[in-house]
């Protein structure tokens, strides 16, 4: 047994998903796979945090509607976000009235919640479980950086926090649905990176470690997957990851096929600098684009690695480095 690698023999199925996003995300290259957009980034609520909460609730509701499942039949909700004490997720859980555990893995929460939900399903303790994460640009910016309207210059390595929420509904193994085959829980890797405007560089080593362990644990190669996608390394973090994997001895042509949701999210628009980030970035792409590719049988086996930088404004100001993690989930479709 390899450290942190989990197998799911009963193959928990992802039977439905719901992805909602804010106004800026309409420009996303993945936008056509999202379920709903808001014209107002606060979702017509009077604070950013309430808007964030509404989006989480909506995404869950959409997933439930698609699967035609009632709220009462859902046994667990695994959710998280980036706001202090994860209040948007907590309030959403209060509205939804589903037994809930809040999870924090920063931007890797989308996958860590899927891992826990799959485990609960695997154990037979859950008929249906909702899992997901979200982020809202304004509320995250104000907490980790500056007020939204502050005119500070961001370097080209900075990333744009996505306003989106993505949730999936996980049930016991079923035909015609993508299934969770295996997962790898990330270690926290800290290579003494300190620049809060260069998260890609901080997170790449964590992604490298998780990918390497997952492949070793599963006895697979990169080429065994139709798609390997990281969460939000961005346009600069992704090449760093590739370089690291090549140094680990992986085949160059396979490494070059690795994609990153954050790097592709806003296309070539340079005003988004190094691309997208935030818990909503991996959640919205993994739970729309990837699931759709699997459902339409365009792909058979996908490795999705969500990356998260585990920093706080406090640790940054105390000159601490930025510890990072990455959680991977292997999804397949027969």
């Amino acid at each position, binding site marked *: 047994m390899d450290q942190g690698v989990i197998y799911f023999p009963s193959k928990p199925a992802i039977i439905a998903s719901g992805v909602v996003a804010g*106004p*800026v995300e309409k420009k996303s290259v993945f936008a056509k796979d999202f379920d709903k957009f808001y014209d107002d*980034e606060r979702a017509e609520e009077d604070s*950013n945090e309430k808007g964030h909460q509404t989006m989480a609730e909506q995404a869950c509701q959409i997933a439930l509607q698609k699967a035609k499942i009632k709220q009462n039949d859902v046994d667990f909700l695994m959710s998280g976000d980036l706001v202090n004490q994860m209040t948007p997720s907590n309030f959403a859980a209060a509205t939804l009235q589903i037994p809930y555990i809040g999870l924090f893995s920063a931007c890797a929460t989308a996958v860590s919640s899927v891992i826990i939900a799959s485990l609960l399903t695997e154990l037979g303790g859950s008929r249906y479980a909702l899992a997901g994460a979200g982020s809202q*640009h*304004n509320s995250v*910016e104000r907490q980790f950086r500056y*007020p*939204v*309207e502050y005119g*500070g*210059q961001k370097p080209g390595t900075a990333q*744009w926090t996505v*306003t989106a929420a993505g949730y999936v509904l996980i049930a016991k193994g079923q035909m015609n649905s993508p299934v969770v085959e295996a997962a790898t829980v990330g270690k926290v890797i800290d290579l003494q990176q300190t620049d809060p405007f260069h998260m890609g560089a901080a997170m790449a080593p964590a992604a490298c470690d998780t990918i390497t362990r997952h492949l070793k644990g599963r006895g697979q190669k990169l080429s065994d997957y139709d798609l390997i996608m990281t969460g939000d390394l961005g346009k600069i973090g992704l090449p760093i990851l590739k370089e690291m994997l090549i140094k680990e001895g992986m085949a160059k042509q396979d490494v070059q096929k690795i994609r990153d949701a954050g790097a592709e999210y806003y296309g070539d628009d340079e*005003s*988004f600098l190094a691309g997208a980030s935030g818990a909503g970035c991996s959640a919205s792409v993994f739970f729309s684009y990837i699931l759709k590719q699997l459902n339409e049988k365009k792909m058979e086996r996908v490795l999705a690695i969500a990356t998260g930088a585990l920093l706080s404004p406090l640790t940054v100001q105390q000159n601490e480095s930025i510890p990072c993690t990455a959680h991977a989930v292997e999804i397949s479709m027969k």
Partner: protein
Amino acid sequence: MLSSLIMAFIVGGLICVIGQLLMDIGKLTPAHTLTILVVAGAILDGFNLYEPLIDFAGAGATIPITSFGNSLTHGAIAEAEKHGWIGVLTGMFEVTSSGISAAILFGMIGALIFHSKGQHP
């Protein structure tokens, strides 16, 4: 007339370049940069160098944040000159800055009328 505008442009621009170098080469946050510039303005006035710069460059010297340090020191020194030791202290309490009052007032008005919009270009 025109020469004053050009001087304001050049001197004001150069002070901003110093700020940019502090940020890019010194790797300082905007808050650190501005703090250093304010302290620099205060020290320059101690050497009687900032007022000539204002005479020379006009708004090129009064608009950058360095002039805030200058006006604080100027008030303190003027009082110290008049009243000695105690003047340094009273001078500190006497100085008012239109920059602070204006920022507070318009900050309050701004909060009343505007919402923060995170929307991107």
